[in-house]
């Protein structure tokens, strides 16, 4: 091992200290984690605007399908369960990463991906059902907003799945290094974030739609 070269920045020149969680130890990686948190903050605003739009046109059904008429309780209950659980298993993969347990990490990733796929499958199924019954997003402002909000979340989840899979490959190939550790941590941050968004979707869209 050669001497640590000067980092590209001055800050904490290449000091790795081991009282921090693994993903934060290399300053090159810890700055990326900060960057990702900032990204999450903007993504949150993105969803905030979609929620705002949904709330404003929620009742604008133009005589077409209403929230009450299209939401299917068992469907979104199951979706919720899958996603909450996948957030948990995602968390366990972070734990495995921090413990340096590559095998557990890969397995928990696989479980998480499977749960995510199940979630997406259900959502696609729900959407297909809606469209088949005439509830398309061209039908009314309410449906435009509904499909866009839920669909944006769904496409985020899809991106997350691809990304998690890519990360899994890298961990499998390279083991747990500061770089892969950071990647594992970040993809999980994203995943938990999507879980929070889903909590708001089922609260604001599905549950409120049932009662209002």
């Amino acid at each position, binding site marked *: 091992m050669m001497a640590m070269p000067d980092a590209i920045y001055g800050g904490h020149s290449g000091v790795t200290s081991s009282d921090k969680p693994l993903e934060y130890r290399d300053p090159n990686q810890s700055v990326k984690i900060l960057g990702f948190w900032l990204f999450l903050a903007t993504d949150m605003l993105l969803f905030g605007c979609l929620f705002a739009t949904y709330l404003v*046109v929620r*009742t*604008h059904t*133009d005589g077409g399908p209403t929230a009450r008429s299209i939401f299917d309780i068992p469907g979104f209950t199951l979706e919720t369960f899958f996603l909450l659980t996948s957030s948990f298993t995602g968390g366990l993969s972070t734990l495995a990463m921090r413990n340096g347990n590559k095998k557990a990490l890969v397995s928990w990733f696989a479980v998480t991906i499977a749960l995510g796929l199940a979630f997406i499958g259900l959502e696609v199924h729900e959407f297909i059902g809606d469209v088949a019954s005439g509830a398309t997003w061209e039908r009314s402002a309410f449906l435009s907003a509904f499909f866009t909000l839920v669909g944006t979340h769904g496409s985020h989840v899809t991106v997350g799945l691809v990304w998690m899979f890519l990360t899994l490959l890298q961990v499998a190939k390279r083991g747990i290094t500061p770089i892969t550790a950071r990647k594992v941590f970040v993809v999980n941050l994203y995943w938990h974030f999507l879980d929070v968004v889903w909590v708001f979707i089922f609260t604001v869209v599905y549950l409120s739609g049932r009662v209002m």
Partner: protein
Amino acid sequence: MKTGHSPRRAKSLTFLSAALLVLFATGCGRQYMVLDPAGPVGREELHLIVMSAILVGIVIIPVLILLFYIVWRYRDKPGNTAPYTPKWSESKGLEVVWWGIPIVIVGVLGAFTAKTTFALTKPPAESADVTPITIQVTSLDWKWLFQYPGQGIATVNYAEIPTGVPIQFELTSDAPMNSFWVPQLGGQEYTMPGMAMRLWLEADKAGTYYGHGANFTGAGFAHMDFNVIATSDSNFEAWVKQVKASSPALTKAGYAQLKEPSVIGTKSYSSFPPGLFNGTIWADGGQYMPNMMNQTGSPLKAGIHTNSTGVGSGDSMSGMSNMTNMSAMSATGTSSSQK
């Protein structure tokens, strides 16, 4: 180093602003419409404008003077004997002053603003005992349609109103959003498809007042001007009679044609299809304005009962036969305390 520039610049600026002041001061004739209001609403707004100009002037003018003084006094010129304290960079006292003064000013201006904002949502207080007249305004591409539900007539690109009577303009659009503005009577409000908004205006002097759409709606927008003609009560009545007697009726087909994008002159109609105004709103999604439905069925709660003659050919309700909550709409009347 050349340093002679800033004072010269200061002077030229002062001259410029002085010249502008003169321009304003002498020019408050008819052409400075905003500064020459012809009704209580415009006056109230002008009052706020003047108020705000004075209040901001209290800080801005000293700032300008201070700037010119400082730049002139502390310029880097050989032999300049002004004090030089390169490390002096904090002063609690001074900072309190310039956090404080603007706070006070914003407080005062904010209070005036709040008061005026709330006041303008009601008919002008001066003529509180006069029965208002309702005029329904629809902005089209690129013309203005005025309907008089009380009188049963309609006009295009001009409107007559009696002086001394509060006018309740109900505004909507059957085209891209526009804004209804008659500077001498008072400020504007948007005309939006699918919504009906209210704007109270009143003229207390007879005259012809320039009006124009103020929100861009495409190629013909520049030609969307109209006149509001304020006359005495009797002249107004006579004008209504004359329009009733000598003008054609506006038919549904005629409206469809009017709606087509075009730039036209003025027109008058002796009547208009019943429910045209509300039909326009509902057709474009007005059913989502929560408050328009619930109590009265009129897009504006007070819309049909502020004027006693409201149930004529301009009946606000007949256009809504396709609506589901007809029952809710019949509960008109008693809830309104409008004078």
